């Protein structure tokens, strides 16, 4: 494109000079046009650089926590992030089967050929509590990741073995500790650290503090471990009580470096799974986690993509601004252009003239925009880091995203910005060059041809037919995009055709109202709702359709909108002359007004939707605070060491906890399998079930045994229950009497959040199986817990049974959870600290609902604030656009202003008239954006999120403040043009008088 334009410029030196002359001739105009045009590029550049930064963060994460590790093989089936039971070990058959050679051999028949693996490292891995003597005080953490490996094998693992393997092998009683652990426990080389495993506590001497790099930074997904402690294989075995020749984890390194190996991850996982299928037995179930891929791709989620989608609204607004500016520039120079056409210039010459000028603006704007985007990205990264810092101590590590701008992204942003701006300029140039020479020279209104040109008629008919065809195909193929866009295209095509016979206002009012209603209700179609849920682009398309339809509807009915103003004119005669003109101009210049309204409405739409999202989340979290943890206020979960011996006694002995605690309940949860259902048949909200369950494996689930105290006090509401129970309470209490009855937690709707779950409800029977012993128990579902919405803290999991049934599985490996009920007015932070200090040494982790929800809300609020700040920059499009349009209007209407001054308009009246005119347009645009945004937000919650517990909350005060703020900003932006208008002398009426 650039070459074509530059080539054309070289061939047409006279036109080039004429076109480019305007840049220096009207400097302020150039500045305004560049500012208006660069916003889109800045937002694209900001989003792409944000993606670069988060990608680097993920790559760093991968490098730091995994290094050469691409896949992790463990024998645990699906596990929830909160599951801290010991990882079962396995022996020789598995260790000798999963080797690089076997993987290559087994993958020979894969479509892409055999996959290469350059390391398989057996290890013993488990989170264990760690303690050390600080300066006079006991320091402890409930979770350090113990890793026991053969040091020689570690040195040969992967193409770039982990740096820690270069250290001398840890001797018996020696350990390398990561920087994270060293910091928490204040350790240094030579210090002593006590690790507690299944066989009891064991003291180790710190052989060195190592950087978190690869295996020395390893943590399992969602782990809150402070970091790894590396010991010799034999030491780990002794601590965990594992037999000789056993491991519980296989680290697999694909061929290639830290990031390249991930490409073969799926094939390697599939191959290893297939190998394990041949060796596993006794109900043992393996999972092959593609940890590197998950870390780098984060489930395909890129935060910059969200910002790019949000930017799309501002970019579209920017395009409308560019079109508006160029049409105005052309109108202003109509006489000049008419003369050029009359003298010699062909239509194509006029197009070139505008294109050359427009290309120069576009180039400057895209370069400036890319640089401004860097600033935006830096601010976004800083904001994100502030948001994520709320969780740093929870995850025990630095979550700071580094700022990173890849040259390719900057180039892409500049090119995209240049292309978008230039295309807008080019299309506008084609339109404005189609002028009537006489009308242009004499400054007369363009005459419309009496008959519609055949080409245009054909295009309109094609739009109608194409829209119908797309609709038919979309509904047949259940394609959400086609189902949404097809009927809209057909409606516009039909409208254009009907406009031959029907007056514009009723016609376009009906068409736009129909499009608005359709775009809103299209989510009733499942294919559209699914697409909306999965693809941010759909959110953009449906939002744009709703906003533009609303703008069209309002633009054609401005007389109704201004009805109230007429009343005001009658009541306050002094306002009549101001309002009369202020209203007349926008009503008469429909396209310009429509474009300006759309600029504001598009951005306010997405601002509103994000505010609705935040307020609804806030309300859900507030409303469901009591419903979390079944009405309890906090929980302490045992670690891999099993139960805490005397939980209640410890609470009683700790004054801080004793005074704060009003009651406790002990739950015990173990992993079972639902053999009637295969995990492969279900998807979860986070993609495939965690751990890529082995083919044919049953669904993993938890059974939670609860005491009568819990059943008597739980506040969990039921979404359904057996008909014989008159109330939820009756149903809960029935569980303590009948151990064959179970209550299901949510969701049991055929999908699931972390774990796959079948669709089950009250009255269904369910078979639970111990995956180790194969023992089974059949239960009847008494009811199902309603999803409280908000953050699900996931402590009471899966299938709830009375503790009286505990022991039905003779060897169930269980994790204990102690729920705490706190008194009113307790210091949440102090209790949280006391809990950690009291139970960390036993490997138990604790949390308080208030604390977690508070952090979650801080994160969401900060994130939404960042989004809104980002959009505030987008609002520059609207505000700057209005300023540009007002400034150009003053120029364009000098003669009119002169006439008004001549017939008696005072300077101040003229100024006010301009201010009122601009602010009315911005106000209407703001109201449209917020109103349609309220609908869009409602739509999102009704059809897309489908959270029955979510209650739509519209943040009236916040939106009113934003609306007024934007309106005031637009008012301020038009003060200068208004003052300039007021200074136009009345004699101008005659100066342009011909």
């Amino acid at each position, binding site marked *: 494109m650039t070459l074509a334009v530059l080539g054309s410029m070289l061939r047409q030196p006279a036109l080039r000079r004429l076109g480019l002359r305007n840049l220096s001739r009207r400097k302020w105009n150039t500045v305004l046009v560049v500012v208006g045009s660069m916003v889109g590029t800045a937002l694209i550049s900001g989003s792409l650089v944000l993606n670069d930064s988060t990608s680097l963060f993920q790559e760093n994460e991968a490098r730091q926590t995994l290094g050469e590790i691409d896949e992790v093989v463990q024998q645990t089936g699906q596990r929830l992030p909160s599951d801290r039971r010991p990882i079962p070990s396995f022996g020789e058959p598995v260790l000798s089967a999963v080797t690089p050679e076997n993987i290559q051999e087994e993958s020979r028949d894969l479509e892409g050929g055999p996959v290469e693996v350059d390391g398989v490292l057996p290890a013993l891995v488990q989170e264990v509590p760690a303690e050390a003597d600080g300066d006079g005080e006991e320091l402890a953490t409930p979770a350090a990741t113990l890793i026991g490996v053969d040091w020689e094998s570690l040195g040969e693992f992967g193409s770039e073995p982990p740096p820690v393997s270069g250290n001398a092998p840890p001797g018996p009683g020696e350990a390398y500790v990561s920087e994270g652990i060293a910091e928490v426990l204040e350790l240094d080389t030579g210090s002593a650290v006590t690790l507690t495993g299944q066989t009891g506590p064991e003291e180790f001497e710190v052989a060195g503090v190592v950087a978190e790099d690869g295996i020395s930074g390893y943590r399992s997904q969602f782990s809150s471990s402070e970091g790894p402690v590396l010991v010799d294989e034999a030491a780990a075995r002794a601590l965990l009580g594992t037999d000789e020749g056993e491991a519980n984890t296989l680290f697999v390194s694909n061929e290639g470096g830290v990031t390249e190996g991930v490409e073969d991850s799926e094939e390697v996982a599939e191959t290893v799974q297939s190998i394990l299928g041949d060796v596993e037995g006794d109900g043992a179930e393996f999972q092959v986690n593609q940890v590197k891929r998950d870390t780098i791709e984060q489930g395909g989620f890129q935060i910059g993509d969200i910002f790019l989608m949000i930017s799309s609204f501002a970019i579209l607004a920017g395009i409308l601004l560019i079109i508006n500016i160029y049409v105005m520039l052309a109108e202003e120079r109509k006489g000049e252009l008419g003369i050029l056409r009359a003298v010699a210039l062909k239509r194509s010459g006029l197009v070139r003239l505008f294109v050359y000028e427009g290309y120069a603006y576009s180039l400057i704007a895209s370069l400036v925009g890319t640089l401004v985007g860097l600033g935006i990205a830096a601010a976004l990264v800083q904001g994100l880091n502030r948001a994520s810092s709320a969780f740093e101590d929870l995850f025990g590590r630095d979550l700071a995203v580094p700022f990173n701008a890849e040259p390719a992204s900057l180039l892409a942003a500049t090119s995209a910005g240049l292309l978008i701006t230039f295309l807008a300029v080019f299309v506008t140039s084609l339109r404005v060059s189609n002028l009537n020479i006489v009308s242009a020279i004499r400054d007369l*209104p363009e005459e419309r041809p009496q008959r519609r040109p055949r080409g245009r008629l054909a295009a309109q008919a094609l739009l109608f037919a194409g829209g119908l065809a797309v609709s038919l195909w979309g509904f047949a193929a259940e394609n959400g995009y086609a189902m949404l866009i097809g009927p809209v295209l057909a409606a516009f095509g039909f409208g254009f055709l009907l406009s031959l016979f029907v007056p514009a206002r009723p016609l376009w009012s009906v068409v736009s109202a129909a499009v608005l209603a359709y775009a809103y209700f299209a989510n009733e179609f499942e294919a559209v709702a699914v697409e909306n849920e999965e693809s941010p682009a759909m959110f953009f398309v449906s939002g744009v359709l709703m906003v533009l339809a609303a703008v069209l509807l309002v633009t054609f009915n401005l007389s109704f909108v201004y009805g109230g103003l007429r009343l005001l004119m*009658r009541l306050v*005669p002094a306002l*009549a002359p101001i309002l009369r003109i202020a209203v007349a101009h926008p009503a*008469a*210049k429909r396209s310009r007004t429509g474009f300006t309204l759309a600029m504001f409405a598009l951005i306010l739409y997405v601002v509103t939707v994000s505010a609705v999202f935040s307020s609804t989340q806030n309300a859900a979290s507030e409303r469901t605070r009591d419903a979390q943890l079944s009405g309890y206020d906090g929980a302490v979960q045992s670690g891999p060491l099993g139960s805490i011996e005397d939980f209640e006694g410890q609470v009683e002995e700790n004054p801080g906890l004793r005074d704060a605690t009003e009651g406790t309940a002990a739950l015990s949860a173990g992993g079972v399998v639902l053999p009637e259902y295969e995990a492969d048949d279900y998807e979860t909200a986070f993609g495939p079930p965690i751990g890529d369950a082995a083919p044919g494996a049953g669904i993993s689930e938890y059974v939670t045994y609860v005491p009568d105290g819990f059943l008597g006090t739980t506040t969990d509401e039921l979404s359904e229950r057996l008909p014989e129970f008159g109330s939820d309470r009756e149903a809960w209490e029935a569980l303590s009497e009948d151990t064959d009855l179970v209550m299901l937690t949510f969701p049991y709707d055929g999908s699931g959040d972390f774990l796959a779950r079948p669709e089950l409800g009250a009255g269904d029977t369910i078979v639970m199986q111990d995956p180790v012993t194969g023992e089974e128990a059949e239960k009847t579902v008494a009811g199902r817990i309603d999803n409280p919405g908000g953050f699900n803290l996931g402590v009471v999991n899966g299938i709830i049974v009375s503790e009286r049934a505990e022991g039905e599985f003779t060897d169930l490996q269980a994790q204990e959870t102690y729920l705490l009920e706190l008194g009113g007015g307790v210091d949440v932070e102090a209790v949280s600290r006391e809990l950690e200090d009291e139970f960390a040494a036993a490997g138990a982790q604790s949390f308080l609902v208030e604390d977690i929800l508070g952090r979650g809300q801080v994160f969401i609020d900060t994130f939404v604030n960042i989004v809104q700040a980002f959009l505030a920059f987008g609002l520059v499009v609207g505000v700057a656009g209005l300023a540009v349009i007002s400034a150009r209007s003053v120029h364009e209407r000098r003669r009119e202003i002169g006439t008004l001054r001549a*017939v*008696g308009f005072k300077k101040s009246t003229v100024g006010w008239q301009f201010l009122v005119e601009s602010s009315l347009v911005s106000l209407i645009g703001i109201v449209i954006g917020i109103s349609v945004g309220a609908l869009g937000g409602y739509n999102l919650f009704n059809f897309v999120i489908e959270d029955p517990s979510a209650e739509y909350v519209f943040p009236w005060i916040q939106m009113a403040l934003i609306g007024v703020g934007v309106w005031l900003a637009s008012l301020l932006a038009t003060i200068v043009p208004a003052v300039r208008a007021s200074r136009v002398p009345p004699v101008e009426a*005659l100066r342009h*008088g011909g």
Partner: protein
Amino acid sequence: MLVTELAAEAREVYKSYNTEGITVHALDSVSLQIEQGALVAVMGPSGCGKTTLLNTLSGLDSIDGGEIFIAGEPLHAMRDARRTEYRARYMGFIFQGYNLMPVLTAAENVELPLLVSGVGVAAARKRALEALHEVRLDDRVGYRPNQLSGGQQQRVAIARALVNEPAIVWADEPTGNLDSETSREVLDLILKLNRENGQTFVIVTHDPGVGSLTNRTIQMQDGKIVGTVEDPEQAARGA
């Protein structure tokens, strides 16, 4: 309407423009008196200063020296706001290019001087319709300027100029954009209004035909008044 013998008076008025370093003396010691109810034509070659004379006499433009009185009030001494108010109340304007607001209907255009003078919306509309009736445009009140012919637009402009019942109406080449037949119609209308309502008209024109219809013709050249031709017959008619 003000009761005074002179509708407008200029005493030793100077006006010059400085454009790109070149000073042009548009008015050079111009003095004149226009009686109440007169129909005066200002004529002369292009660039002689006749439009500048109209602009300064009407207060659209400021002067560099001298004095201007409208109905005995010193226009030259008024601040902009007062002058504007005065213009709205006591003057009407007719321009060669009609200068109607393209976004307003005929009635809305005519209402403007009334609204800006503080007349209520309903009363303004009533008087605008009467004015449009007077210029025989009852059937075009809801039309926008681009839906009207040149003659019709100029008649709307005349209605706007007269709706406030101004003491004096300034017309700058009112027939300059019109064909001869429409020009005649417009001039007849001006003559009728001058005769029947006694309003003072000052018309800047190139057209000798227009000049012949007035009761006084002021000739200008190089920013000076070089002659005045009285038409007793017209003067008698005008008086």
